[in-house]
């Protein structure tokens, strides 16, 4: 996984609350292999009209939002379905950082596993940033994961991120490699749990 330290670029002011993962990628697109690229499905039904044409006013369809690596949203971003395809759509579109006050838990975890930062910004700071982006759409926004800070204009605001996730993103660590370093502990746990909870295993019954 590619390490993430700093990003400086434009930000797309999505500005919506409760953007669930069904919005991020409608279910009908998830049959495709990931290798085909999921970027075109991002927010498909909000972004496009019934005929499939881009809605010109939608922030993701206009520069600089169209090619921005940062997405700004209101509360409860990524709630709902556990579909990791929602993160694939963001990542394949080119988003590396999301700034929002709260996230769906499963979504945030999926994001980190794909090298995307779900930074938790105070609601008031999100509102200020959205207002700044409304005034100056090509505003440069800097996100520094090491310092846990977002900067725009003359503003510097702190964001929060789980410390384990921060370390993982900064180093580009993969969970499975870390877990495998505990294979002895896992084997020991397995043996103990079979003695302690012999009823845990599914009964072989045909």
């Amino acid at each position, binding site marked *: 996984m590619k390490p993430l330290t700093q990003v400086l670029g434009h930000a797309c002011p999505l500005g*919506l*609350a*409760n953007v*669930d993962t*069904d*919005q991020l990628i*409608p*279910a*009908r697109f*998830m*049959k*495709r*292999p*990931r290798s085909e690229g999921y970027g075109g499905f991002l927010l498909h*039904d909000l972004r496009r009209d*019934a005929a499939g044409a881009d809605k010109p006013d939608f922030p993701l369809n206009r520069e600089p939002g169209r090619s921005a690596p940062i997405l700004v949203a*209101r*509360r*409860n971003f990524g*709630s*709902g*379905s*556990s*579909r*990791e*395809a929602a*993160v694939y759509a963001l990542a394949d579109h080119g988003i590396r950082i999301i700034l929002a006050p*709260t*996230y*769906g*838990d*499963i*979504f945030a*975890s*999926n994001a980190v*596993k*794909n090298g995307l930062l779900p930074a938790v910004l105070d609601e008031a700071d999100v*509102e200020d940033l959205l207002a700044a982006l409304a005034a100056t759409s090509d505003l440069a926004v800097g996100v520094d994961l090491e310092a846990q800070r977002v900067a725009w204009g003359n503003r510097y605001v702190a964001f929060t991120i*789980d410390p*384990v996730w921060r*370390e993982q993103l900064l180093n580009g660590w993969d*969970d*499975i490699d*870390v*877990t*495998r370093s*505990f294979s002895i*502990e*896992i084997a*020991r*746990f*397995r043996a103990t*749990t079979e003695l302690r*909870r*012999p*009823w*845990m*295993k*599914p*009964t072989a019954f045909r």
Partner: protein
Amino acid sequence: MTASAGTAQATRAPRALFDKLWDDHVVVERPSGDALLWIDRHFVHEGSFHAFSQLEARGGNVAEPGLTFGVADHYVPTRDRDHVANPEIARMIDDLGTNTARHGIELFGMHDPRQGIVHVVGPEQGLTLPGLTMVCGDSHTSTHGAFGAYAFGIGASEVAHVLMTQTLWQKKPKRMRITIDGTPIAGVGAKDFILSIIATIGADGARGHAVEYAGAAVRALPMAGRMTICNMSIEAGARCGLIAPDETTFRWIEGRPFAPRGALFQQAVESWWRLPSEANAEFDREISLDASRIAPVVTWGTSPEDALPIDAAVPDPAREADEGRATTMRDALDYMGLRAGQKLAEIPIDRVFIGSCTNARIEDLRAAASVLAGRKAKVPGLVSPGSAQVKQQAEEEGLDRIFVEAGLDWVESGCSMCVGMNGDSVPTGERCASTTNRNFRGRQGPGARTHLMSPAMVAAAAVAGRLADVRPMLEGRS
């Protein structure tokens, strides 16, 4: 990276059900507070192909094939299963068969008599037990918490991780307890409880929390109702939902195909009796509701938190003090084609759906049938039972005839119109009264308008051709 080995030491403080489940599954803890947890049960479905692709890409093996089960539910057609028309769907169903067979995972495939929705099949087969950690690449895995299991939804990377290691890294959630006391009025049930809770605390109100449901009204619920409540914990943003196991739980489990038997079952029950939260266990948040004050609930907007009693009216964004919330409400009303002040019970509907992991168990079908018996639906609709076994039982009880005589379609089991992946969808612009869990924009199909409610309330809506209070329709019926 450092870690301390061994199970977490029991603290002196009284422990909650969730603490016990957590402590029982910690393989290692890191100083940062997250832990590697052992996973007792894992389910995969057609949508899990992304995880199998990751597994193949790494050349990995499945660590514990005996603890993972495959179920075909998300994409399976609910009609004409011998000829799956959509080639992409046919390929996904085939891929699930290939992937599970290759790795020695037992599959309840499309033609298996045990097939159904994963969160109905797991409990039905006795795979869901108190005291387990259970995961699936599906957010409604929270359903299994109704048995006192720590059950939660995960993404594809985590599915791959569980396949390869039988473990997961997790940060310990906070604990919340929601106590529902009192006796509900007739026509009000588990779905009304959970929708009321979500409306009260918000769609992210339980974010970062393991929610335990307690109180007399919860204890009085059968397993089906308990599952409905835990199922929609995710719609309140919770990491999981939990209900302490009791006699109701144990009686339900005993004798199911994969459940422990004989002396092992007795030993299990002894362990399970030790699971409930101890007196004075501390919770980070406590919320109380009075069941007697809950009326039948329907949603009006595009988030499950947009829920109100059926005798209320569509709220007015102009009266909302918070501008952000007012904007969200206006957008929701625009999408839903509703106007502020309109009475909920006057909203006409185009179709109904009875199904999903939330409300497609035999008790749910009986509740809907008790309203529909001898009546006609004014709108078309689909009834998809939670599993092939639920379908069979419903047919033995004659419920299928009640649905068909009312004018609804009786079809095979799957996720169907809840998620619209298999081709069952609500046409653009149409309004559906639905027993499902999400009224998100486009969830049941592009441009579909969803109103969530209980099975009895969906049946009432079908009869009235509009959203309707089920209570008068229940008069004189048992």
